[in-house]
C-alpha cells in the first residue's frame, strides 16, 4: 500500500514537471525601476486580451541580463527590463548562450531627483555643488583630500548652513549608477582643480563614506518617509516618487531647472536616463502573446503623452522618437551587434 502510494506520488510529480515544460505566459525579469511600468502594461495586457498575464520578476538590471542571456528555451525569460542600455560584454554572453537576436525597445525616461521636505526651503543645486558635497575626495590646494565639507554652506554661500545629509541608494542599485554617471561624473568635470589633483574617471564617482551620504536601501518609499521626518536631509530617488508625494517633498532645482514632468520630457532637466526592455526574438512565436505585449507597450494609450504609463511617472519620449522606436519594436528589428 505504502509502496503503491509512493510510486503514485513519484509518477504524479514527474507528470506535473512535464506539464510545466510548455509555457503559455510571458516571463519578464529585470530592473526594479522599470518594474512599475512593465507591471502596469502586463496587467492591462492580461485583462484586455485572452492571453495570460505576464509574470514579472524584479531582479535588478544586471540580474535580469544574467537570466535573459542564459539561453533560449521555455526555461529562460522572454523579456528583460533595464534601466541602462545593454553592455557589450552582456551581448557577448548572450551570443555565447545562443541568444543571438535581441530587439531593444526604449520606453521613455526616468528623472532622478534630489528632494527634501516641504517644511524646508527649496534648494538650488548645480551638479558641481552636489559632487563637492558627496565626493569621497575633493581637491584642496591642488591635492586630493578626504572631503572636508560638513555643511552645505561650506560649499557655496547660497546654500543653507545645515549639515550635509543625503539619503540615497546603495551601490547595487541602478539609480545609484545613473546618479554617479549623470551627477557625480559631470560635477567632477566642472569642479575646479579636480583633474589636476588626480581625481578623474572612476575616482570621480566615489561617494563619501563618513556619514554625509547615507545608504538608505533600495526602497524609495522609505527615503520619502525619512525626508518627511528629517527636515534637514535630502534624498535621491526616481521622479515617480516625487510625483506621488508632491504634497510632502519638493525636488531641488538642478542647474537652474526644476525636476518637473515637462522639463524632464523636454530634456531641459538633464539628470534623467532612458529606460529599456529587451526581447528575445527566438521566443516570438513559441511563447504566445509576445508580439501583442509589445504592441500594447508601444501603443499611445500606454506610453503616449497622456497614456497610463505617464500617470505612473514614466516620462515619455518626444512624438517623433516614439513613433520611430515603436515601429522598429513592432517589426522586431534585431539589434546590430
Amino acid at each position, binding site marked *: 500500500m505504502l509502496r503503491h502510494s509512493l510510486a503514485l506520488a513519484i509518477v504524479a510529480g514527474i507528470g506535473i514537471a512535464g506539464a510545466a515544460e510548455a509555457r503559455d505566459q510571458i516571463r519578464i525579469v529585470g530592473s526594479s525601476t522599470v*518594474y512599475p511600468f512593465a507591471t502596469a502594461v502586463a496587467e492591462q495586457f492580461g*485583462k484586455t486580451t485572452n492571453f495570460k498575464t505576464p509574470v514579472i520578476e524584479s531582479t535588478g538590471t544586471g540580474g535580469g541580463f544574467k537570466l535573459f542571456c542564459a539561453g533560449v528555451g521555455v526555461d529562460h525569460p522572454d523579456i528583460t527590463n533595464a534601466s541602462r542600455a545593454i553592455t557589450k560584454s552582456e551581448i557577448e554572453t548572450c551570443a555565447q548562450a545562443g541568444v543571438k537576436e535581441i530587439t531593444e525597445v526604449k520606453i521613455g525616461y526616468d528623472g532622478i531627483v534630489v528632494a527634501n521636505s516641504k517644511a524646508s526651503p527649496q534648494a538650488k543645486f548645480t551638479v558641481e555643488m552636489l559632487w563637492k558635497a558627496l565626493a569621497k575626495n575633493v581637491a584642496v590646494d591642488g591635492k586630493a583630500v578626504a572631503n572636508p565639507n560638513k555643511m552645505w554652506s561650506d560649499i557655496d554661500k547660497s546654500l543653507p548652513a545645515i549639515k550635509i545629509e543625503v539619503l540615497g541608494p546603495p551601490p547595487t542599485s541602478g539609480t545609484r549608477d545613473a546618479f554617479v554617471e549623470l551627477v557625480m561624473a559631470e560635477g567632477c568635470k566642472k569642479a575646479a582643480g579636480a583633474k589636476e589633483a588626480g581625481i578623474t574617471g572612476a575616482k570621480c564617482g566615489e561617494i563619501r563614506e563618513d556619514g554625509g551620504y547615507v545608504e538608505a536601501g533600495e526602497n524609495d518609499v522609505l527615503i520619502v518617509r525619512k525626508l518627511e521626518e528629517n527636515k534637514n536631509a535630502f534624498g535621491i530617488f526616481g521622479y515617480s516618487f516625487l510625483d506621488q508625494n508632491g504634497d510632502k517633498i519638493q525636488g531641488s532645482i538642478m542647474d537652474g531647472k526644476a525636476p518637473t514632468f515637462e522639463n524632464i520630457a523636454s530634456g531641459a532637466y538633464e539628470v534623467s536616463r532612458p529606460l529599456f526592455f529587451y526581447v528575445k526574438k527566438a521566443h516570438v512565436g513559441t511563447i504566445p502573446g509576445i508580439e501583442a505585449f509589445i504592441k500594447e507597450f508601444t501603443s499611445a494609450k500606454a506610453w503616449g503623452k497622456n497614456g497610463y504609463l505617464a500617470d505612473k511617472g514614466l516620462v515619455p519620449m518626444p512624438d517623433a522618437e516614439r513613433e520611430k522606436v515603436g515601429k522598429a519594436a513592432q517589426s522586431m528589428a534585431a539589434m546590430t551587434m
Partner: protein
Amino acid sequence: MSDLAIRNVGMTSAMDATTTNSQRVAAGLKGRYAAERRFKAYGVLAIAFALACLMLLMWTIVSHGYTAFVQTMVRLEITLYPQDIDPDGKRDRDVLSTADYRTPIRQAVADLFPDVQGRSDQRQLDALVSPGAVFLIRDMVMADPSIVGKRVSITIPVSDDLDQLNKGYINPNVAEADRKVSDKQIAWFQRLKDRGLIETNFNTILFTMGDSREPELAGLWGATVGSFFTLAVTIALAFPIAVMTATYLEEFAPKNRWTQLIEVNINNLAAVPSIVFGLLGLAVFLGFFGLPRSAPLVGGMVLALITLPTVIIASRAAFKSVPPSIREAALGLGASRLQTVTDHVLPLAMPGILTGAIIGMAHALGETAPLLMIGMVAFIVDIPGGLTDPATVLPVQVYLWSDSPERAFVERTSAAIMVLLVFLFAMNAVAVLLRRRFERRW
C-alpha cells in the same frame, strides 16, 4: 585549667562567631532582599520593554493599515448599450470579454456632471473612478450576459488618489500643483458626496483578488493561495523526513562518532542563512532538475530544506522527553523495538513534534530571501491554480507593495502585514491547541 581556659576561650570565640554571624546575617538580610527585589524589577523591566516594543510595532502597523480595510466607492447608474458592447448581438464570450466598457462608465460619470466641458476637464473627470472599474463591469457582464442593454446600478471603487483624499492622507490645503488631485476633482468629489453617491464599504477586493498596479484593485488572495500551496509542499516534505530522521537518531542509531557528526551538522544547518538555501534551490531544483521558476512546488522544496533542521531538533527533544521507563516497560512485555517506537514512544512524542513542525512552518511562512532566487518575488496577477503555476507568497507581497510609489500602497502594505500576522497567530494557536490536547504528564 589551661585546657578549660582554652575551651572557654574557644567557646566564647565560637559564641562570638555565632552572634556575629547571625548579626551579620541579620544585617545583610535587608541587602539580600533588596537585591532580590532589584533582580525581579530588572526582569519586569525587561518584559515591559519587550512588550512596549511589541505594542509600538503593532500600533504603527495597525494605525497605518486599518484604513486599507475600507474602500471609497461611488454608486453609478450605468447603461450598457448593446451597440457599445456587443454590436452583433450574439453574446459571444470573446466579444464580451474584449468589449469597450470604458465608454459606458465615462457616459455615466459625465451624466452626473453635465456642466463639465472641454477635453482637459473631461480627462480629469474620467480620472475620478478607478481605471480598473472596466474589469469589474466586464466580470459582471461575463457572469450574466443578460444585463447587456439594461441600466444597472453598481458601486465601483473611486481612483486611489480620491480614496486617499477621502481617508485624509492627502492634504487638500497645499498648492494644487503639489498634490495628485486637482481643485476641480475635490469639488466634484464633494458634489458626489453631497448627493449621497459616495460610500465607504468593506474592501472585499483586498481579500478576493490577485496583485495589481492599481492600489484599489490590488488584493492578497493570490499571495495567500501561493503561501498555502508553498507551505503544503513544505510540510508534506519536511514533516515525514524530519520525523524519520529524529526517530532513527534517537531510538535506533548507535551513539558513535558518526551520529555525533550528523548531530553537530544538523545544528549547524539550522544556523545557515536562508539565502544560501535559495541559491541551492536555484542550482539544483531549477538548474539540474529543470523545475519551473516561480512555482510553489520549488518554493515549498526550498523552504522544506530550511525548516528541516528546526523540526528535527524539536522532534529529537520530544523523543528525549519520553521517560525511559515507557520503553523499558514495552520491551519488558515483549514488544519489538519497532513496536515500542511506533506504539508507545512516537505517540507520546507527537505533541512536541507537531509543535516543532508548526513553529518551523511559521518560520517558513515569513521567508522571502530564498524565494528571490527561485523567482517567486514577482508580479503575478492570476491566482495560482496548482503547484507549478507561477505564484508569490504573503511576505513577498508585503515587500513588493512597500516598494510601490503609489501612496495608497502604504496603507495596503500595513494591511498585508496584519493579514500575515493573523496567519502566523493562527498557526501558533494551532500549535498550542495540539499541545494542550495531546500532551501527557507523568
